[in-house]
């Protein structure tokens, strides 16, 4: 496909890797923020093309992974109600809460449906006026405009049987949190290109100046990733800390104005719990009071979701970049995609799932 295949060109990738080896004079630790980037890095073996001094750690940009266990329990409880159709993106279904997952709720007779888009859930609500359709609205800035549009269309269309169970988070505050965390070794960021296509680069630029770390907006194909890494290392080697856009074919500096306008009209910034990281101030989105009628937590009087709940999973350390997935004692043994201890092992964007899928289980001791 155009704009994809050419970015997988091996000759181009090797040329970038050679340049990277030429300019790297000392050890650096970079974090790619988005789980989609993590999977591409492992799938194509980008980490193995890098000079030994260069280390990539994997960030928190996996929407399924950061959705709190307490909210998954609420989704499971909703799915068990006979009047409810619980709609979700597919890779949420096998993520464990504290009381099972949505797939088990479905097996036990709950009406759980996988949708491709929040608008599919809204269309289902229109077709099933006697049922309550709840969409599990998880995601980062990339997904917020789509969820906002679903709420907006439900409101303007007078759809009374549609609501959102919201777990919207913001990537900027998480990057800030990582740089402030004791033990963090991150010296430069590859920022998530798709989120930046919506938000633009202004907030990332502030982050880079606040902490004096280079931030390179990066795409998802091998050539994109190597170009992003090269630009980031070049800055570090030269003592610069700037915002660079290595994904300019999709990211305009100002972002996507109509998407941002819609998001801001439906959502407001609130504190949010991140699974494994805890509550981060001003790190998420909640429905504005104008949209309270479409808030599943209010409609079904769910109350606040209890926090925490991962005694065995070290996903928080993985998402902070302080623990590599295959260094976790549970990796590939007690924790596998078939029986995960936490979300990063099952999500299609989870770092542990990427290591397991592309590097396999560890050798038995």
């Amino acid at each position: 496909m155009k704009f994809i295949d050419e970015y997988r060109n091996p000759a181009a990738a090797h040329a970038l890797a050679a340049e990277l080896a030429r300019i790297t004079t000392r050890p650096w630790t970079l974090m790619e923020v988005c789980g989609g980037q993590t999977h591409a890095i492992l799938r194509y073996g980008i980490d193995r093309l890098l000079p030994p001094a260069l280390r990539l750690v994997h960030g928190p940009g996996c929407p399924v992974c950061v959705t709190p266990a307490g909210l998954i329990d609420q989704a499971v409880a909703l799915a068990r109600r006979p009047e409810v159709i619980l709609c979700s993106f597919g890779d949420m279904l096998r993520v464990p809460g504290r009381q099972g997952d949505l797939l088990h709720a479905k097996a036990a007779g709950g009406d759980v449906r996988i949708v491709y888009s929040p608008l599919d859930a809204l269309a289902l609500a229109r077709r099933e006026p006697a049922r309550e359709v709840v969409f599990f609205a998880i995601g980062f800035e990339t997904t917020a405009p789509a969820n906002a549009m679903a709420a907006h269309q439900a409101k303007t269309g007078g759809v009374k049987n549609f609501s959102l169970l919201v777990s919207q988070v913001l990537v900027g505050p998480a990057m800030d949190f990582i740089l402030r965390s004791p033990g963090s070794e991150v010296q430069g960021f590859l920022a998530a290109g798709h989120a930046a296509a919506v938000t633009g680069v202004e907030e990332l630029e502030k982050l880079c100046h606040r902490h004096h770390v280079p931030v390179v907006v990066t795409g998802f194909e091998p050539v994109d990733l190597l170009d992003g890494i090269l630009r980031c290392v070049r800055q570090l080697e030269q003592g610069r800390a700037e915002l660079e856009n290595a994904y300019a074919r999709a990211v305009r500096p100002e972002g996507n104005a109509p998407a941002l306008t819609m998001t801001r009209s439906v959502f407001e910034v609130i504190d949010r719990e991140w699974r494994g990281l805890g509550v981060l101030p001003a790190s998420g989105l909640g429905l504005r009071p104008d949209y309270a009628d479409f808030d599943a937590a209010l409609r079904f009087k769910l109350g606040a979701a209890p926090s925490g709940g991962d005694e065995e999973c070290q996903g928080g350390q993985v998402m902070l970049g302080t623990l590599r997935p295959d260094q976790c004692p549970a990796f590939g043994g007690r924790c596998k995609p078939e029986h995960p201890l936490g979300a990063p092992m099952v999500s299609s964007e989870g770092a542990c799932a990427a290591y397991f899928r592309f590097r396999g289980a560890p050798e038995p001791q």
Partner: protein
Amino acid sequence: MLFGTIEKTINLAYAPDAEVGDHVLVHVGFALQRIDPEEAARIWDILREMEELQDLEVATQAPPEVPA
């Protein structure tokens, strides 16, 4: 919209400037940006400047004419 050979209906509310024939970045049913072909080509300029793209050059150039 075509994804390779798969056809799907996509909401264009957030990409009002997209026209037939454009490539767009799509996420959960919405076009989020039009792909800018000029920006997409820039990486190849950078690589050419590095003068290390010999394999690619060979692959994309027509074979030189052999004098008769």
